[in-house]
């Protein structure tokens, strides 16, 4: 085999000359200035773009926006990588607004996932199935797979600032939801239906402010107890407020006339109702993120989840952080009754048993004052505050 010099000595001399000139330029610059002034360019043989595939359990809105944080973290660690995420079909539109996500893959719908796992006598966890199947892909540095658990392990192992990821999530959540809101609630049917329902439930034009109340989420530990729900509803009714009860299950409390029962609804329908509320009281669930995106004054009740990342990014959010130990639930609930446990709940869920209305009164007052501010143009609240 011939060397370059043997093949073409002239070309070789020119190349040597150019290399010498390159070295001369570097020698005249300080090491710091070199890096500043001469940017790194891609190598001649560019490696393929790394693919990162984020998979989360088919959860709710909070899961999706936290994937926004994870995606941001991925882009920091691997700026050239392609980041794909996998979410339930009904939340694809949210995922598409995530700034650091290149493409969103829909799985589901959730109903299918749940029924599929139940048919096999297992806990619904379709995405974990998917994840496990993809885990068998040989490790070649080309594909990276994270699910929530491994994401957490990885961030711990690699000393990535997981908190920063959470902050990204909150930031992503607020901006993403704001962008996605028109798409969710702009269906004329949903909005018209919501307007009619509210007009029907609260016919009097002088009726009080409308409070959206979401006492339950997908995490059992976040759910409010029936006792507390009753106590809070009584308090709200005493204050001449109207309540839109936003829950996925039938209320276990006796609602008064000035309330709107809105259960067994899908997320779009809940969003259409929430959009018309004056203030929101919610646990850590999708309604919390929705309220932030709608810029509604909100009381957020947190138990296990740390509210810190959200406080800086969610406008008009007053946080009630339950800091006591969660206790075994002894109250009857729909879940226990459906399983035949009666009054003795043995499903193992732990609740905020010591939470009382007094704990949220201060936050509620603050939120009402915010909503009563003229800039909010909330006539019902202003009238009440006077």
């Amino acid at each position, binding site marked *: 085999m011939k060397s370059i010099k043997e093949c073409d000595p002239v070309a070789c001399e020119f190349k040597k000359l150019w290399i010498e*000139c390159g070295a001369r330029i570097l020698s005249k610059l300080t090491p710091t200035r070199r890096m500043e002034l001469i940017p790194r360019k891609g190598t001649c043989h560019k490696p393929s773009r790394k693919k990162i595939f984020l998979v989360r359990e088919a959860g709710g809105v909070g899961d999706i926006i936290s994937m926004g944080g994870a995606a941001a973290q991925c882009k920091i660690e691997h700026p050239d990588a392609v980041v794909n995420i996998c979410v339930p079909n009904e939340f694809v539109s949210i995922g598409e607004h995530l700034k650091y996500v290149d493409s969103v893959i829909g799985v589901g*719908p959730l109903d299918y996932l749940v029924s599929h796992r139940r048919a096999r006598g297992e806990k619904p966890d379709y995405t974990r199935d998917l994840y496990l199947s*993809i885990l068998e892909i040989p490790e070649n540095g080309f594909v990276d797979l994270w699910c929530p658990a491994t994401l957490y392990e990885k961030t711990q192992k690699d000393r990535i600032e997981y908190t920063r990821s959470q902050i990204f999530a909150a930031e992503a959540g607020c901006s993403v939801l704001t962008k996605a809101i028109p798409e969710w609630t702009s269906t004329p049917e949903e909005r018209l239906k919501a307007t009619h329902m509210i007009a029907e439930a609260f016919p009097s034009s002088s009726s009080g402010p409308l409070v959206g109340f979401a006492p339950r989420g997908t995490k059992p530990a976040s759910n409010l107890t029936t006792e507390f729900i009753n106590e809070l509803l009584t308090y709200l009714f005493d204050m001449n407020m109207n309540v839109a009860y936003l829950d996925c299950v039938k209320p276990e409390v006796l609602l008064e006339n000035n309330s709107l029962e809105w259960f067994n609804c899908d997320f779009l329908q809940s969003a259409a109702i929430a959009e018309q509320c004056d203030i929101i009281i919610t646990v850590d669930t999708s309604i919390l993120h929705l309220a932030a995106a709608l810029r509604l004054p909100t009381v957020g009740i947190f138990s296990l989840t740390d509210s810190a990342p959200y406080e800086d990014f969610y406008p008009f959010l007053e946080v009630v952080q339950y800091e006591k130990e969660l206790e075994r639930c002894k109250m009857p609930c729909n879940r226990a009754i459906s399983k035949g446990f009666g009054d003795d709940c043995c499903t193992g869920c732990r609740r905020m048993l010591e939470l009382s209305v007094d704990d949220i009164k201060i936050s509620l007052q603050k939120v009402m004052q915010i909503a009563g501010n003229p800039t909010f143009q909330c006539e019902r609240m202003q009238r009440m505050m006077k």
Partner: protein
Amino acid sequence: MKHHNNIECLNKFRTRSTRTTGYQEFTYSDQSIFMDTNTLDLYEGDESELPIPASLAPQYPICPNKHLRALVLEVTHACQLRCSYCYVSQYYDEMSSVMDFDTAQEAIDTLIDPRVVERYGFQLGFFGGEALLNFSLIEQVVSYARAKFGAKVSFTLTTNGCLITKRIAEFLAAENFSLVVSIDGPPSLHDENRKDVNGKPTHAKVLKGLKLLKEASVKKVSLRATYLPSNTQLLKRTKYLNQLCDKGYGTNISVEPAFLTETSCVKIPPENMFAITEIEGSLRQEYVDVADYLVDRLSQGKTAYFKNIMVYAQRLLYKQHSPSECGAGVGFMSVNPDGFIFACHREMNSLIGKLSDGGVSEQDRA
């Protein structure tokens, strides 16, 4: 066999099983979906029609041109200029040949592997003669390639810059072309060698073309200067072209001696050959002056434009070793108007096949 770019269809899967090496099979009702475990690409259809998985590609080449990342179409041999150093001057008699769309289409279909395009992207270049003399073909080919490969294909064009019109500039900008425009330096140096068929200077026309490119916002325009041993003046050329870049007429420059290629590619006229002694003597000092000028620019916070030198500065700084400067015949090929395939777009002795004979001849390429 239908190819999916995403895995949206995964929501249909009910069971899964591991099978053929390199693929995972998912089944839903009677339908099977196969996922390439390296690329996550999905295929549905018959198992026998699956392409060789990416994990096996290194051992079993997917096609003879699996390394081909760039193809140059010599859309015409004709040119309206008669540059004194032009290496095809000896073929002026044959310069009337013009490529037709059928040949271009056959070249694209025969030589380019869509899977390579999908995975790595692809660069399709237009060369001449003066390529813009056959602009209608360029439009047709761009349209065809976009329809076939989408955004994965990018385009390059080498031109003397004299034929650029507003319409052409807007087309090049819209298709995100990377351009190489030949301009040897200030008018005195440029017009010395680059004259049209009537012997008239061309510098003013090139500047007009560059202005149109700037107005149309063509993003990548490399200014290419060529010099001969008889009149080098590297610093003067470099300064002038850097000033053009400062004004937004270019995004990079290269200043290269004529005929700097493998000797086997080009028949170099003796008078245009650089002697080793020249390179080691006066020319070296000129390059040193250019390097100092580039340092001055960098120190002033300006970009230093001089591709040949700055590339090596980057490689030295970031330790980016490059084993080969030229991918001719492997990562890069060209097709001339008559359908002959060359390893290098400068043709000469680098013939490696003919489209009408089925493409690249491995015997010739070897």
